[in-house]
C-alpha cells in the first residue's frame, strides 16, 4: 500500500482548507450555484435527488484497516450509518449536508484520504485490477503506475476543466479485470521485444448512452514516456472535444468522429510538443513511488493447518473456498472476497458496524489491507490458508460470505431512482427480486459464472452494456420498463450486449431473467460451458423465442 510522504499530506491538507473557503463563499452567496458546481464536484460533492452525495476516492481500490474504520466513522457521524461502494472502486455517502463536507474531508485527510477529482470534468480516480500483486498471470503490479498517473493529474492546471469527465484504468495482467477497454484510456502493461517495460494504449472506450469499446492507439509506449503521452491525449481532447452537447462531449465521440488514424496522428504531433515541457520519467522518480509501496512480508512456508480437513467436514466452507477465494501467487495464501451481495442487501452497500468488522479482519488476517472491486464487493487480499476458516466464520456471521462471486446474484447495480436524480427507473428492487428468485445457493452454483448488470438509466453506472445479462431501466408513460441485452463482456474479450427485443415491464422483468437462465441451462453443452460461451455459440434467437414467443 502506498504511504504518503510530507508533500502528499500537505497537498490534501491544503485542499481541505481551500474547499472549506470555497464552501463558505458559496454559502455566503459570493459564488452562485453554477459557479460553485465545478469546485464542489472536483471535491466529490454532488447535489442529488434527496440530499448531497459525497464520493470519496479510493485510489486504485486499496484501503488499509484504519482508512476503512474512518469510512465507518464518517458513515456513523455524518450519514445514516452506511456507505455505498461504486463500480469505480470508490465509496459514496448519500446523506451528508453541504456544511458537513469540509469537515468530512478534514477527517479523511487524517488517514491519507480525500475526495479530490472523484467527480467533475477532470481526470477521475485511476482504477485497476483488484487482484493486482496477487494474480499469477500478472506481468507487473499496476498500482505504482496508477499512483504516478494519479499524482501527475491531481490539480493539473491544464486539465481541470475538460469537456467532460475522464477515466483511466490500468491493468498488469493479460486477463482484464479492470474493464480497461471501456475507459477513456485503458493502459495494459506489456513487455517489449527486449524485455523493456511499456504500455499498450487504448483510447476512446466508454459506456453511457453511446457505448464504445476502446481502440488501440499505440501497441508499445515505453514506460518512461507515459506521462507525456497521456498529456498529449488529454490536450487533443481538451482542444477538440465537443463542448456544445454534454452527451457528445466524451473522448469516445471525438475519436469516432475523427477516426482512429487521424486521432492517433494528432496525439503523436502533440506529444512531440509536450515532450519539451514534460521530460521523460527517470528511474529515480519511479523508484521514489515504488519505495512508498510497502508490500506484505509473507511467510516463506505456510502451514495450511486444518484447511483441507475443514472443507471435508463443512460443505458450506468448501463452497465458500471454491467460489469466494482466489489462489494467491504466494503459496499458502488466498485472496478472499467479502460479498456485498446478499438477500435484503443493496448491492455495494455496507453499514458502519460491518465496515469496522472487515477492518478488524484485514488487520488481523490480511496484512492490514482491504480492496474494493469494480463489481462492488470487497477483498481481503492476502489471507493465509490456515486462517481461512476463522475468516469465513466471521464473514458468515456478518452475512458477508454469500458464496456467489461472479455468479448470477453477484449483481452490479447503480443506485437507480431510489437515490439518483438522473435515473428513469429503480434498479435496487430488481436486484432484490433476483436474489429472492434465486435464493437456492445450489441452483446459483449450478448456473456457474454469470454476470447480471443493472442500470436505472442510459448513463450506465450499473455497466449494463457489458453484463452477460444487461438490464436497463427506462420510463414509459410514467411506468418503469426494462430493456434486456445479452452477451456483453467487460474483460479482454470486451463486447457490448445485444438488445433482444422490446422493453419488459417491471412485473415481468425477473421472470424474463429466469427464462434466460433456464434457456442457457437447456442449451449448454455441459456444466463447463459458461453462459457467455453458450451465448456466443448459439446467439440470441433461442433466448428471444423463450421470452417473446415464436414471433420474435
Amino acid at each position, binding site marked *: 500500500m502506498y504511504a504518503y510522504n510530507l508533500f502528499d499530506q500537505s497537498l490534501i491538507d491544503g485542499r481541505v482548507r481551500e474547499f472549506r473557503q470555497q464552501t463558505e463563499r458559496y454559502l455566503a452567496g459570493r459564488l452562485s450555484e453554477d459557479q460553485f458546481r465545478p469546485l464542489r464536484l472536483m471535491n466529490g460533492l454532488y447535489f442529488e435527488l434527496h440530499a448531497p452525495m459525497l464520493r470519496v476516492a479510493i485510489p486504485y481500490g486499496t484501503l488499509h484497516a484504519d482508512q476503512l474504520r474512518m469510512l465507518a466513522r464518517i458513515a456513523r457521524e455524518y450519514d445514516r450509518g452506511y456507505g455505498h461502494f461504486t463500480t469505480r472502486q470508490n465509496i459514496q455517502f448519500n446523506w451528508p449536508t453541504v456544511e458537513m463536507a469540509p469537515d468530512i474531508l478534514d477527517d479523511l485527510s487524517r488517514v491519507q484520504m480525500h475526495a479530490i477529482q472523484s467527480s467533475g*470534468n477532470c481526470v477521475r480516480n485511476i482504477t485497476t485490477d483488484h487482484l493486482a500483486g496477487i494474480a499469477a498471470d500478472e506481468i507487473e503490479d499496476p498500482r505504482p503506475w496508477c499512483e504516478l498517473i494519479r499524482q501527475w493529474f491531481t490539480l493539473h492546471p491544464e486539465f481541470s476543466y475538460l469537456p467532460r469527465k475522464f477515466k483511466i484504468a490500468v491493468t498488469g495482467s493479460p486477463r482484464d479485470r479492470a474493464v480497461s477497454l471501456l475507459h477513456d484510456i485503458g493502459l495494459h502493461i506489456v513487455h517489449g521485444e527486449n524485455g523493456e517495460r511499456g504500455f499498450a494504449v487504448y483510447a476512446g472506450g466508454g459506456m453511457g448512452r453511446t457505448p464504445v469499446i476502446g481502440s488501440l492507439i499505440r501497441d508499445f509506449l515505453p514506460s518512461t514516456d507515459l506521462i507525456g503521452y497521456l498529456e498529449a491525449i488529454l490536450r487533443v481532447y481538451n482542444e477538440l472535444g465537443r463542448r456544445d452537447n454534454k452527451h457528445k462531449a466524451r473522448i469516445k465521440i471525438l475519436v469516432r468522429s475523427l477516426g482512429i488514424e487521424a486521432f492517433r496522428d494528432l496525439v503523436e504531433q502533440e506529444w512531440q510538443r509536450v515532450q519539451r515541457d514534460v521530460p521523460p520519467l527517470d528511474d529515480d522518480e519511479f523508484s521514489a513511488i515504488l519505495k512508498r509501496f510497502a508490500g506484505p512480508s509473507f511467510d516463506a512456508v505456510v502451514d495450511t493447518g486444518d484447511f483441507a480437513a475443514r472443507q471435508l467436514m463443512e460443505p458450506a466452507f468448501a463452497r465458500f473456498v471454491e467460489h469466494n477465494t482466489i489462489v494467491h501467487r504466494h503459496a499458502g495464501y488466498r485472496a478472499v472476497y467479502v460479498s456485498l451481495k446478499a438477500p435484503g442487501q443493496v448491492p455495494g452497500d455496507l453499514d458502519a458496524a460491518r465496515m469496522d468488522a472487515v477492518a478488524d479482519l484485514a488487520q488481523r488476517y490480511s496484512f492490514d489491507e482491504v480492496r474494493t472491486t469494480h463489481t462492488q464487493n470487497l477483498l481481503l487480499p492476502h489471507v493465509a490458508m490456515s486462517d481461512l476458516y476463522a475468516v469465513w466464520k466471521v464473514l458468515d456471521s456478518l452475512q458477508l460470505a454469500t458464496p456467489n462471486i461472479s455468479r448470477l446474484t453477484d449483481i452490479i447495480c447503480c443506485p437507480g431512482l431510489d437515490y439518483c436524480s438522473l435515473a428513469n427507473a429503480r434498479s435496487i428492487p430488481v436486484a432484490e427480486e433476483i436474489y429472492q428468485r434465486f435464493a437456492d445457493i445450489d441452483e446459483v452454483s449450478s448456473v456457474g459464472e454469470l454476470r447480471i448488470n443493472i442500470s436505472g438509466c442510459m448513463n450506465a453506472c450499473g455497466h449494463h452494456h457489458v453484463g452477460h445479462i444487461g438490464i436497463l431501466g427506462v420510463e414509459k408513460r410514467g411506468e418503469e420498463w426494462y430493456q434486456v441485452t445479452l452477451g456483453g463482456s467487460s474483460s479482454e474479450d470486451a463486447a457490448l450486449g445485444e438488445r433482444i427485443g422490446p422493453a419488459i415491464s417491471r412485473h415481468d422483468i425477473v421472470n424474463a431473467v429466469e427464462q434466460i437462465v433456464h434457456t442457457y441451462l437447456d442449451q449448454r453443452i455441459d456444466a463447463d460451458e459458461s453462459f457467455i460461451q453458450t451465448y456466443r455459440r448459439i446467439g440470441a434467437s433461442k433466448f428471444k423465442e423463450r421470452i417473446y414467443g415464436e414471433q420474435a
Partner: protein
Amino acid sequence: MANKPEHDDTICERLLSVDADTDIEELVSASNDVDRILIHVPVFTDGRIFSLVRRLQEHRDFTGKIAVRGDMLPDQVTLLHRLGVTEICLDNGLDINDQPREITRSYRERRIDVVLQNNHDQRQVNQEAGR
C-alpha cells in the same frame, strides 16, 4: 479567428485579441513577433483557455505576454498563473481577490521545479568544469 496584429502608436505594442475558442494552430502561427495576446473567455467552464495558454508558451517564436479577460472564477486565476499568465481581468462581477488564501501546489509544479533546479545545477557544474 485572430485579427491581424495591429500596430498601436499610443502604447507601442503589437496586440492580438482573440476568443478562447480560437483555432490553436492558427493562433500559434499568427503569434510570431506579437508583444501581447489578449484572450477573451466567454464562459468559465470552457477549459480550452488552459491548453491555449500552454501551447503559446511552448511556441518558441512567441515571446510576448498573455493577458486573459472574461468569465473566470477567482480560483481559476491561480491555474492561469501556474501556466504563466500574468495579467488577468474578471468581467463577471466576481472579486479576483476572493479566493482561498493558500492555493495548493500540484505534483506537476513540484516536478517542474525539481527539473528546473536540476538543469540549473547542471549548468553551474558545466560552467565550473569549463573554467
